[in-house]
């Protein structure tokens, strides 16, 4: 099953998204929050993200969702630290809340990586009203 990592500057946002997405997803999904700094302050930490990616991996790849600019840079730094060449991990360029929910729902059906990513990306054009 594809794993999902939520990267936010805020610990609460990342955990909150995980709580929400878990409600909508099926069992067995590895959905890991990687938000905020070690001390809980606002910010991102590439090592925290790296650990989350490794934890979320069960061999089918890991999709990463980020909130703002420097979360992406920290996530990209984390990707460079991964030392497992078989671990496919990618950042989805999509709004974090909506993209995570879509990804979680599809991932928990056991869908392959490309389908999970495609679902996350649909959030870019989702209309609310």
């Amino acid at each position, binding site marked *: 099953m594809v794993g999902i990592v939520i990267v936010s500057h805020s610990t609460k946002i990342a955990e909150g998204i995980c709580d929400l997405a878990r409600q909508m997803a099926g069992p067995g999904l590895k959905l890991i929050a990687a938000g905020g700094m070690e001390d809980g302050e606002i910010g991102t930490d590439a*090592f925290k993200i790296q650990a989350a990616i490794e934890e979320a991996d069960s061999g089918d790849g890991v999709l990463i969702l980020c909130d703002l600019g420097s979360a992406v840079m920290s996530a990209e730094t984390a990707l460079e630290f991964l030392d497992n060449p078989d671990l496919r991990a990618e950042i989805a360029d999509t709004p974090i809340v909506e993209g995570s929910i879509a990804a979680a729902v599809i991932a928990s059906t056991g869908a392959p990586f490309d389908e999970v990513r495609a679902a996350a990306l649909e959030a870019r054009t989702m209309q609310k009203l």
Partner: protein
Amino acid sequence: MPSRIYECISAIGNRIIENMDFLTELDREIGDADHGINMARGFTEVMKGLDPEETDIGAALKKVSMILISKVGGASGPLYGTAYMKAAKEAMGKTSLTTDDAIAMMRAAVDGIRQRGKSDVGEKTMLDALVPAFDALTEGAAQGKDAGQILDAMCQAAAQGAAYTKTIAATKGRASYLGERSIGHEDPGAASSLLTLEAIRDYLK
């Protein structure tokens, strides 16, 4: 007996920490007022984590990189972290540096920032200070200038670059949300890059 690289990094750290309020003020004008706080936090942790006896320049810089990446929090973490990491690779196992080493280190650092930040000069970032400084380094070396003259030229170029950032609008980072309203304000990353180079220059003199 602290090593030279430890003392040099301390000089950078102290300069950044001393200027925390200045950097925060710059960032308050066009950002979220945390550049000074973040950088000071990062370098405070660097000073705690760095071994004063470490003589391997690459190992020391790698340590700086790892700490900045996880302790700065904002964009400067991955950006400065990548810069120090790339520079470290060029200095692994070295206990002293030639001008050619310095050029290789700075080239790697600047390219690392370009790649990580997906940016280049003219976008109101730290690169507007660092790229001119790097050019001054290579030009000074090619002209056979001594280290002191080269460092002076680098700081002058970086200062001009930082001043230039006042005149343009931000397209990267939080300041980019302000667009044209960011004109007239110096980029905090360019300011902290200048402080870094000045601290190195002052230490080596």
